[in-house]
């Protein structure tokens, strides 16, 4: 008996060819890449992993001074550190993995040009490795939360059962980040100027997301609708509502965000597959 063909190489014209089995075969690679990303990030730095904590803390202080202090933007009655930290933790996860992934093809051209593995393993590993950072920052949030809840303002924060949505919210954030970054990385193989644009775009995007202000300050109903069109908005708001008891939990918003994520992921996979087949020809 002849063993069956284990590899069949074709022009691959089908648009949506996920080949999850193949990705699963490379799960070890994915996890090793995750480990590499985590262990090498702060190697040979003075403070090491502490940077995961220092960076959001410093950002929070800056926001407290600039937006809370000078600009006097409301935090929905929440203590400023809690408000900003909760937004920053989620936003950082989304934005960091997005910017990091946007150059997947260009950054890894050397590897991709020499050896085959499902390219999606790369962005996937980044999204997973950033989860650790998110966990640490959420831990930091928890510490600050405990300080307020138990000591500074006992019982003033109304955490509720909707906090259980957190895993779903994180998956949605990861999905969005993955979708956007895959779309972007596919385009940057052709247009390098998008790399420059992305940093700028992500900066702007943050201001269109209720990170430094609560959605409730947007009273103009048209502007409110526009805000809700941003699929990240309802995720951040839902998290704040569950964790801190203040915010807008909109099921419609979450459903919309989920739908957008699914559509974008499909689109991203199609583009990504199309690019990964032949991008070596024009990198």
């Amino acid at each position, binding site marked *: 008996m002849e063993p069956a063909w284990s590899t069949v190489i074709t022009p691959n014209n089908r648009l949506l060819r996920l080949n999850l089995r193949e990705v699963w075969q490379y799960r070890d690679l994915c996890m090793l890449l995750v480990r*590499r990303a985590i262990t090498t990030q702060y190697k040979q730095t003075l403070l090491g992993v502490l940077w995961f904590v220092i960076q959001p803390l410093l950002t929070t202080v800056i926001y407290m001074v600039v937006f809370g202090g000078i600009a006097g933007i409301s935090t929905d009655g929440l203590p400023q550190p809690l408000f900003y930290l909760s937004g920053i933790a989620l936003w950082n996860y989304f934005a960091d993995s997005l910017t990091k992934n946007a150059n997947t093809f260009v950054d890894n051209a050397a590897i991709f040009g020499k050896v085959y593995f499902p390219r999606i393993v790369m962005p996937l590993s980044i999204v997973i490795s950033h989860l650790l950072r998110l966990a640490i920052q959420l831990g930091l949030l928890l510490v600050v939360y405990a300080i307020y809840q138990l000591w500074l303002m006992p019982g003033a924060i109304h955490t509720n059962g909707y906090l259980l949505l957190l895993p779903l919210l994180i998956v949605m954030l990861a999905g969005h980040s993955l979708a956007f970054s895959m779309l972007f990385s596919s385009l940057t193989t052709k247009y390098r100027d998008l790399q420059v644009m992305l940093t700028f775009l992500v900066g702007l995007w943050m201001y269109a997301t209720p990170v430094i202000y609560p959605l409730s300050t947007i009273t103009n109903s048209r502007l409110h609708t526009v805000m809700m069109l941003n699929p990240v908005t309802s995720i951040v708001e839902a998290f704040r509502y569950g964790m801190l008891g203040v915010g807008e939990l909109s099921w419609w918003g979450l459903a919309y965000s989920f739908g957008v994520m699914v559509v974008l992921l499909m689109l991203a996979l199609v583009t990504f597959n199309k690019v990964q087949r032949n991008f070596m020809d024009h990198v």
Partner: protein
Amino acid sequence: MQNAVEFEHISKLYRLGTISTGTLRQDLQRWWTMRVRRREDPWLQIGETNDRSSKGISNIVRALHDISFNVATGDVVGIIGKNGAGKSTLLKILSRITSPTTGTIRARGRIGSLLEVGTGFHPELTGRDNIYLNGAILGMSKAEIRRKMDAIVDFSGCERYIDTPVKRYSSGMLVRLGFSVAAHLDPEILVVDEVLAVGDAEFQKKAIGKMQEVNRGEGRTVLFVSHNMAAVRNLCRTGILLENGELQCSGTAAEVIDTYLSGQHEKPADRCFNGEEAPGNSEIKIRRMYFVDTDGHTVSYGLISQRIGLRVEYEVLQDIPAFTHGANLYDATGLHLFTTHDNNEPQAGIVGKGTYQTTLWLPGNILQAGHYTLSFAFMRYNPFEVIYHSEPLIQLALLDDMEAPTRHPQYKSDLPGLIRPVVEWSKAEKLVVK
């Protein structure tokens, strides 16, 4: 015999120039002029200058065209051809770095290549971590790497530094470590592109050694791309010849090398001359010049360690006074290397009308590998007179021989120099100072 790899109608097209202008601004501008204003593509000129083919209109380049062949399991196939013939593109498609435009490749088993040395090494990670990472990139599972870890570390010879970040490694150690991982991938189908490994003699030697070991020991399939005909001849059983993206011929390695070399020659290695155009004069005409090996078989190339015969058939057109022969050998640059005269006693008297044949034997282990041309002459003594001296008519290709006595068996790369004589070395002895 079952096939390890089947190539079916593989074609690959590249579009030149006009895929994209490189920046979004220019592409939008192009889209605007072409689709909205219905004008000509403002960037078309850029594409045109890139086009090397004679057809100026087409900006499509055919890197591979309708390649079909099968590789039997356990075979060692040499893929040869000039630069740009499509060898590397074929390997790239086989290793799935780029996809074919049409056609299908089917393969049994893991495809590994010895090019991917140290792919994905991260300078901050230790040797051990990098072995895991590199191995996983090449397609090994974590458990598999763990099983082979000792062997890999052993082979690399980096045991002492295995838990040190590789940024502290010397470049040689990095290559050894990388190669060691690649060598332990144990693919069912091994791809070796020597073209890309040129320059590092040590590496080449190891790669070729591993290739032989893999093939002989475990009967694995090897695809070998090389410019070095001697290596192909030594290592490969079968071969395919690519020319301008098309499959020129396939067959045994020797046959394919033959075709390749005869296509490369400025002059053929075997020439027949008919009628009046044949080189010569009114007395003698050369009818055929070719090479034979010691068994008398016609050959188009030789090995530097072999005796090779130049056989000349000539026609004496009328009864003429006896004469003798001579030949000249020139190298590829036209440098006259030597003259040789027939040292047999010439017949006395008259040579009758008819066709004759003579063979002169070039000794082995004198000439360096390369291309040589030969001219032939007829002359008489007493008084000395050249009856006819042809121009260089045929060309001899001499290939290096891995088993030549002029090379140490463990040295596998080039031996430079103009000639390759056997030199006698006496054994070193210790000097005793009195």
